[in-house]
């Protein structure tokens, strides 16, 4: 069976995803502040418009749209112009309003999608849904409904989520991780007194994907995935060790 892919157009990422995200899926990108979640999302939308002729929406719950216009311009992406052409809309709202809106018939988001023929959406960030309820089961239900509404509208989505820690593994009450179709983790890693960034595709429902942990960077061209970390282990701990050191520790010092 031929599975339809939605390419991100991001160097190195589509290869890790087996060709791209699957059509009409919800894809979680989780990372600490500054790791590049929003840049990845903006690039997914921008490339969708200019490379795949797929209009897109950005739904933001915290960062003002004018910041997106400015940040995008730094990469050479003219979001003002795309909005004028009706190919992009950056909607500032709150989780409670977006939820009520998308669950209603003929709401603002549904209308925009129909008018623009939108195929992609970035929701930045899902972390804010946590303020709707303290009940984990209820929150899972809310997130599940919201994601299903995006799929109902034929949207392939990137949902960002903030990681509460800068380095190392983040303890999360991870209902959302179960609800989404794929799960990408962005992490800071300290190697030889320098901070680098690591990307892992933790899960991808219905598709094979790369299992290795890759380095990535946000350059003047946007998000770029690079080679995998060679000769290191414990990357996700935030403080990896050389594999030889851990070998010595495990097999020689323990004797």
């Amino acid at each position, binding site marked *: 069976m031929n599975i339809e892919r939605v390419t991100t157009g991001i160097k190195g990422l589509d290869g890790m995803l087996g060709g791209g995200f699957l059509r009409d899926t919800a894809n979680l990108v989780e990372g600490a502040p500054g790791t590049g979640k929003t840049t990845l999302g903006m690039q997914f939308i921008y490339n969708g418009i200019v490379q795949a002729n797929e209009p897109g929406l950005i739904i933001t719950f915290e960062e*003002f*749209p*004018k910041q997106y216009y400015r940040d995008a311009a730094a990469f050479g992406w003219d979001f003002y112009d795309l909005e004028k052409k009706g190919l992009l*809309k*950056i*909607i*500032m*709202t*709150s989780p*409670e*309003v977006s939820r*009520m*809106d998308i669950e*209603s018939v003929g*709401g*603002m988001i549904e209308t*925009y999608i129909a008018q623009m023929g939108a195929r992609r959406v970035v929701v930045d960030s899902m972390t804010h849904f946590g303020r709707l309820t303290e009940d984990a089961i209820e929150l899972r239900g809310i997130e599940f409904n919201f994601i299903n509404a995006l799929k109902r509208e034929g949207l392939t989505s990137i949902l960002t989520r903030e990681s509460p820690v800068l380095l190392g593994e983040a303890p999360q009450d991870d209902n959302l991780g179960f609800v989404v179709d794929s799960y990408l983790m962005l992490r800071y890693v300290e190697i030889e007194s320098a901070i680098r960034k690591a990307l892992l595709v933790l899960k991808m429902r219905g598709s094979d994907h790369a299992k290795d942990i890759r380095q990535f960077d946000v350059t003047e061209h946007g998000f770029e995935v690079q080679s995998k970390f060679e000769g290191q282990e414990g990357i996700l701990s935030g403080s990896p060790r050389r594999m030889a050191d851990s070998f010595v520790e495990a097999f020689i010092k323990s004797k």
Partner: protein
Amino acid sequence: MAPSGDDFTARLMDDMDPVLLDFVKTKVNSFIKWDLVRFFYENPHTADTVENIAKYAGRNVTAVEPELEDLVESGIMEKRLLDSTPIYSLATDDEMRALVDKFILACEDRHFRVKAVYHIIRGMR
């Protein structure tokens, strides 16, 4: 008879595009409305409750709510109900959007801003 100082200033300040003069006198006639109009101009697809809009504007709800209602009344903003919660957004009417654009662009000129501030303060007396 020579005009009084106040009359002279008023005439000087009335030297504005009549459309914008009317806009300032009848629609954006407070500093909070001015801030709100600028915010929605810069973030045109914002749609939210009064509580959240007040947060975005860095002001309190009691100050923002009547101003938003005035902006709805004057056609700059739109209000709709979602599950009986009022949601505010910038009017989609092209003519009104063009007027808002014209006002914000005019505000880039310092002389225009001084005149607009004068009329707002005068209207508050």
